[in-house]
């Protein structure tokens, strides 16, 4: 909301009065917020807070019950499938089995939004695939079968698909849920670096762990029971009061012994 006043250009995402219902149950209460370019936004909140649902609505995997979502000022339903996929890449929480594909073949599928069903797989596509594999550190694995990779490598391969897609915005649904701490860092550091080069790319990532989120993201959006609890820079969110409001348990905050960044803990 500060963005709208501060930034000269329009925010990438504008969400207005978004509602989601499953039968009688309200998953997202009327929700309004906007998300800027060039930043990593973390979606946080307890289980069932609607953060995954919000991400799926943004990815057009779910149609909202009411309200509107605009990407670059254009309502989501007006985007055509491939044009939308050139702007927004989405990775589901559980990536499917890749059915015998090699890493390179899988990553090449990310070029579909650009060449379509019949278009030629040209030099530009090849360069994008090379770049995505390089940036995710998978060069040594590119001819291995995806299903034979370890969990962390597989997650990086799917991340490479999104990079090859060359989209302006990446949507990640708990990309680290099945990984150990080292592999979590590996994946999240790649995500972190994406926005650093001033590419204007935006990342929206659902994360369970508040400290991982604070370490990875520029801004946090906190949901609870489908409602927006807080939005702002990590340092603003990581206060005992706000964390209590988000998670419903008393929490404290202390500075990281090395970096000095705030760390949340349960009292």
């Amino acid at each position, binding site marked *: 909301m500060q963005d709208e006043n501060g930034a000269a250009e329009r925010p990438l995402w504008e969400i207005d009065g978004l509602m989601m219902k499953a039968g009688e149950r309200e998953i997202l209460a009327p929700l309004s917020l906007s998300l800027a370019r060039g930043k990593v936004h973390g979606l946080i909140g307890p289980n069932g807070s609607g953060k995954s649902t919000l991400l799926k609505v943004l990815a057009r995997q779910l149609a909202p019950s009411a309200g509107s979502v605009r990407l670059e000022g254009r309502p989501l339903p007006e985007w055509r499938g491939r044009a939308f996929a050139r702007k927004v890449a*989405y990775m589901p929480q559980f*990536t499917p*089995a890749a059915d015998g594909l090699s890493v390179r073949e899988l990553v090449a*599928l990310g070029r579909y939004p650009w060449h379509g069903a019949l278009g030629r797989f040209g030099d530009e596509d090849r360069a994008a695939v090379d770049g995505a594999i390089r940036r995710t550190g998978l060069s040594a694995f590119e001819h291995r079968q995806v299903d034979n990779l370890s969990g962390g490598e597989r997650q990086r391969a799917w991340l490479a698909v999104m990079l090859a897609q060359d989209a302006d915005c990446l949507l990640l649904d708990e990309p680290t849920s099945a990984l150990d701490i080292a592999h979590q860092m590996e994946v999240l550091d790649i995500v972190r670096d994406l926005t650093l080069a001033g590419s204007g790319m935006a990342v929206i990532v659902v994360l369970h762990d508040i400290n991982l989120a604070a370490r990875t993201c520029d801004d946090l959006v906190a949901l609870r029971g489908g409602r927006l609890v807080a939005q702002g820079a990590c340092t603003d969110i990581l206060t005992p009061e706000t964390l209590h409001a988000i998670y419903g348990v008393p929490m404290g905050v202390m500075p990281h012994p090395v970096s000095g960044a705030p760390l949340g803990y349960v009292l």
Partner: protein
Amino acid sequence: MAEMVLATGGRRRVAWTWLGLCALAGLLILAALLRRPDLPGDPETVRRLQEALLWHSALPRIATALLAGAALGLSGALLQRVLRNPIADPSTLGIASGAQLALTVCLVAAPGLLAWSREGVAFAGGAAAVGLVIAMSWRRKLEPVSVVVAGMTISLMAAAASTALILARGEYVLSVFIWGAGSLHQQSWDGAIVIGTRLALGALAAAALMRPLTLLAVDDASARSLGVALVAVRVLVIALAVWLAASVIAQVGIIGFVGLAAPALARISGARTPSQILWRAPLVGALLLSIADSLIQVSAGSSGDLIPTGAAVGLLGGPLLLWLLPRVKTTTPPQAMLRATTPRRAHPWRMVVMLLAGGLLIGLVTLTLGRNGQGWLLAQGDLFADLLPFRAPRTLAAAAAGALLGAAGALMQRLTGNPLAGPEVLGVAAGAGVGIAVVILLVDTPGTLLLMAGSAAGALGALVFILLMGARTGFGPERMLLAGVALGCLCLAILSAVFAAGGWNTFLLLGWLAGSTDRVGGLEALLLAGATLLLLAPLPLLARWLAILPLGTPVSRALGVPVVGGRLTLSLLAALMTAIAAFFVGPLSLVGLLGPHIARLLGFGGGVAFLFASAVIGADLLMLADWLGRTIAFPYQIPVGFFAALIGGPYLIFLLQRGDARHG
């Protein structure tokens, strides 16, 4: 308070419904008893005859219907419980067809065994079938859809084998069909007594197993930690269910889908716990079969029943399955997806070319090598020229049909991510059969073109139906597969009713079911080949959809692939291929399942090369089957569809087992 009133109100309504159904069954039984034929002759003889008929035919029939229905209901309830699968029953698991095949084989090969124990033979067949089904779907963790698809495949194979026997032995075994379709005619109390004692024993055993059965509701790990001897209980319960079904089949033949319907209706009537379902399902089954049988008797003409009760009940099966579909959870464990069993080939197209060359070689052999009265004969020169008009069309037709089936199978397996999906189990082929049956019934001596038109119309009808069903779920592959299976069941029930009605021209239908290429003329073969090329040509254009769609809806949508349109296009293509091929080689050949599996075994991982390899392998297989079928039993010809199924079936099971061992 209000809830309690509502609950008792609901219970009262259920009680009234039950009472109403019982009354209906009773009334229908009375009506059937009253509507017995008038007999000519002097009053005294007629009175005594009527009395004898009442005591030794009519009443046993009523008792048999009630008891058989109850036994099937219990069998279905047990199977659904132990496999945690709401669409398991003796028909969908292949038990019925397996038992029937075993009985048919014995009737031909060892009639003495039948006299000794029909029930034992039926049990062996049913148990073998269910064992195969479980072995095939073990790798998919007995996931409901896969179990039923495997069951249908086994059913089809058993049906193929039975039909082969019937064709070979002519009218002698044709009576098996009438029996096989579940006629409840009785001449004595024997059948009722046998089924009754089995039912009583089965009910006792089920009661004894009630506790472990209740615990099976939780997942395996939890059940094991609660101290249930999982494997032992499973095997015991399945054996019990098969035994119940087999005893019914041995007495009265196949009565489809009572086992499916009874537990489902029991659940609707408010049964929640396993014990409630297990007690109510037999009651519902008894009522259901009794009502159906009485209706058949009431509507019967003077010459006997219009259709056997079993076939009539079978007609209920398809709609019932479709109705149950939305209730089936189709959770596919992500690890259980298809995997290449061999390392990927670096140059897949070279292998395709090699397979093509192999096909040409096989074609050459087929055209030249044959048998005559003296022995093997290599046709050359004039003889070759004389034989060519006979041999070339059928070879071409076999190759083209095989290519279509192989490609359709590859498409369907990619589309559904289910290694058991094949064009044979999709109802399209069976729909074509119903179209042919209609033509045969309406026209005295139909020509090939008319039959072809009937086949196309039937296939198209089936296709439209499946697509309509699929549209409700955004063409979700598993649902489409199940809708196809359900439709296949329905169509096969219709076919078996037509067979049971008899008449010489049902042999025409049998001929189609068997799939024979010997009636193919030159023009038809060329048409078929042209259609094949036309349908295979667009495959390279669809390669990217085929690569992305198997990754599931979320990923496909995220990449901007038109999910619904893509699936619709591919399904339509696969169904068209199946319909055309099935007209020539019948619905049973299994080539559509085999082709893609062999391609995987050869190291084709996916993509267009995989599709074409499957097509070429399919063509090679069917040409080979056609040649072998022509020569192996010379001077008799074994229809190509059967021959492929009889060889391919066991090999397919071997393939699936192999994958099982490797991936655990």
